[in-house]
């Protein structure tokens, strides 16, 4: 029997974490969803809250990692994937 839902864990770091007031959450998606779908779902869940729009609108600075590897919004998701959203890094 094929499961038509997947659950991914979502992480926010640095200014995004602070702005949204959340560092980690789990999101249920349709099987076959890509990261862009995850972003849409997150915005819907937040009722298009301004802060969430701000994070996901900043296409030039928003960085995405899937399972700790940088990727693009068209990356397909699997059950249990860890997706992280963060601004450009500033270590060193």
């Amino acid at each position: 029997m094929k499961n038509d839902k997947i659950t991914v864990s979502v992480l926010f770091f640095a200014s995004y974490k602070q702005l949204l007031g959340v560092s980690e959450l789990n999101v249920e998606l349709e099987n076959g969803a890509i990261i862009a779908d995850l972003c849409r779902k997150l915005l819907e869940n937040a009722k298009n809250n301004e802060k969430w729009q701000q994070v996901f609108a900043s296409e030039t600075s928003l960085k995405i990692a899937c399972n700790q590897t940088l990727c693009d919004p068209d990356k397909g998701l699997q059950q249990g994937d860890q997706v992280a959203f963060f601004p450009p890094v500033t270590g060193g």
Partner: protein
Amino acid sequence: MKQTEIHLNPVYLAITDKALDLAHFNRMVQQQQGEYGASVIFTGSVRVSSAEKHLVAMSLEHYPGMTETLLQQIIDKAVKRWQLGRVVVVHRVGYLKPGEPIVFVATAALHRREAFEAAEYIMDYLKTDATFWKQEHYRINGVTKDVWVEAKQSDQQRLKRWQQKD
């Protein structure tokens, strides 16, 4: 002829919320270098500002797991590109006061050129690739203000030096 052989694990990598013991890390590259007689140590510290806009402290956050992987990848590329006898990369996270070291990057090579280039290469990529974020805590006219440090375009520019040769 009896000869003392010195075997070193060439790479030491650490991310820590404890104050960096610079003397310890210095010794890792300045002592027992064997034939790798040229070493370069870079240390980056929280600056002690003297202006009106007074920097009180800095917070450093990272992405545990991903950061270690990314730093190891940078070191692997450096080790492939230059013949290095020693690489030490240590990055601090947590709450730091002015003057405290943030990052320590050191290399030992056969010749000074390799040691300088490899240390600068690791620093350049660490700055642009490794998942660390800095927040500065200022006190301006008696009021505390927290500011996330913005990524610098100049850091991206620095990478061109290495990419042209890649």
